[in-house]
């Protein structure tokens, strides 16, 4: 009897504690999400109001499936996300370990590391565009002087070279975020484990592989989920740096959705694109959770 009532009171308390968060989110998010789903099932061309807003079922989704530009954009997005996340995790882990250490100037390092994350995305993109400008850009000037290039290269007119500034800019800007999250995860690891391992003669590399990384799994999970979400929604950065060009070879799905929604005023089609992006990222998040073996509803083993 007592156990059941304790469980019930615990459930009541639990719901009471999550309700402020749920309340704010529900108030703000339910209407827009519902509206997006609703719109995706209708034809809604703002420029042609005489067509009305007829219900068309899954016609928008069928159009997406046949749209080569969408699949190309999806490919670009996946490529961008995978490359960026890999680089960011590696460098971020290194930085997190570094920031965790004691050394002179660590305060400065911690503050300096956050500077890229603190700059507005559009300004950061403008900066990197500036750096990779063919004539006035410092990147070309340095590369030519170092003898790596014979003459200034026009980075943005070849697909392969256009990705370089894009990925560099994203890694530059977002690694601090990854580093901070991993650093927070490092704080939860019991220091005595390291001491015990050191006493047993394990070197730093072994400690990293067998203590740090496994215990960092929850932090890595959160980092992966949020970075993937951000990667799939990348917009400002690529819009300013390449505009999706050359042609459409660096166009990500979010830019394509922007075009559909706010340039071409096709609310029905654009909403369907958004739902597809949602479905993909949701699926990926589920994959991460299962793959990393972290139980969401229960406690850590």
């Amino acid at each position: 009897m007592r156990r059941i009532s304790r469980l019930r009171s615990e459930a009541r308390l639990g719901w009471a504690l999550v309700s402020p968060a749920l309340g704010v989110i529900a108030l703000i998010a339910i209407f827009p999400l519902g509206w997006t789903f609703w719109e995706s099932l209708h034809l809604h061309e703002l420029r042609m109001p005489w067509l009305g807003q007829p219900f068309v079922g899954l016609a928008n989704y069928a159009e997406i499936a046949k749209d080569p530009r969408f699949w190309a954009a999806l490919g670009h997005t996946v490529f961008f996300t995978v490359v960026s996340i890999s680089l960011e995790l590696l460098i971020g882990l290194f930085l997190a370990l570094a920031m965790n250490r004691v050394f002179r100037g660590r305060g400065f390092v911690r503050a300096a590391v956050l500077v890229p994350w603190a700059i507005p995305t559009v300004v950061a993109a403008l900066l990197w565009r500036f750096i990779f400008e063919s004539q006035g850009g410092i990147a070309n000037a340095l590369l030519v002087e170092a003898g790596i290039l014979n003459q200034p290269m026009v980075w943005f007119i070849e697909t392969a070279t256009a990705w370089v500034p894009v990925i560099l800019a994203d890694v530059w800007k977002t690694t601090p975020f990854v580093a901070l999250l991993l650093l927070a995860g490092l704080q939860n690891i019991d220091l005595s484990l390291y001491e015990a391992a050191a006493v047993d003669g394990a070197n730093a590399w072994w400690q990293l592989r067998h203590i740090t990384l496994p215990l960092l799994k929850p932090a890595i999970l959160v980092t992966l989920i949020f970075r993937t979400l951000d990667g799939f929604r990348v917009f400002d950065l690529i819009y300013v740096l390449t505009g999706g060009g050359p042609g459409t070879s660096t166009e990500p799905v979010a830019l394509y959705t922007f075009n559909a929604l706010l340039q071409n005023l096709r609310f029905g089609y654009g909403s369907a694109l958004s739902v597809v992006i949602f479905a993909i990222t949701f699926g990926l998040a589920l994959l991460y959770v299962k793959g990393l073996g972290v139980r969401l509803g229960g406690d850590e083993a």
Partner: protein
Amino acid sequence: MKIRWQNWLFGGALVVLMMFTLFPFYWAIVASLTPEAALFREPSLWPTHIIFDHYRALFDERDFITPIRNSLIVAGTTTFFCLIVGTLAAYALARLEFRGKAAIMAFILAVTMFPQISIVSPLYLLLRALHLIDTYPGLIMPYMTFAMPLTVWVLTGSIRQIPKDLEEAAHVDGASRRQSFTKILLPLAVPSLATTGILTFIYCWNEFLFALSFTLGPERQTVPVAIALFRGQYQVPWGQILAAAVVATAPVAVMVLVFQRRIVQGLTAGAVKG
């Protein structure tokens, strides 16, 4: 016994990374002190001809103080409420047993899975219906909604990793749930709180699309919107934009410097080992 070459390698890699991290910002500062015409001529690492016109224009011609004030209010309030609400939710999700926890975490996350541009139009309609356009709450509430997932997920993960035996011991000693929460758990969660606080603040500070769409005039517009308004139809005033970016980064950098010690535990706990 220290292995010196490992330390040298570590230090070297760190220096290289620091240069990579700070170089564009250094470049921004140099460019903001250069007359615009010289910017596109020949790039140079050192400022050849220093002028302060861009900075002066920021505060004389363009009144950059108001957007900074707005950004501070919005970012500060959002961070504040997000931490409180998020911590409560995280405690429940990490420490209490009840059904639906996974669903709650999924729901909280679902919002951030839509591209912002798709959310903007209906959110505008909603905020308009609530008469919140061009107000502080009109920005704070959407920001909270989008910053909450990170806060909740990070804090939940952190709290789960804090061993339960301390609270259990306190419970055995007669402490109430609230006391064990505030006196034991919370202090141990300070690194995660500080981290998510910093990240939330920066997110709000730099958010552009919502700020552009939900504010109408200079009284409520935030820093990114103000910077976007510098642009003419064709003209891009590089010098002023970069000067604004430098100025806008300063408060954030200060805040981080102040809080950076809290993002690591270890020494700040005043440990007495034994």
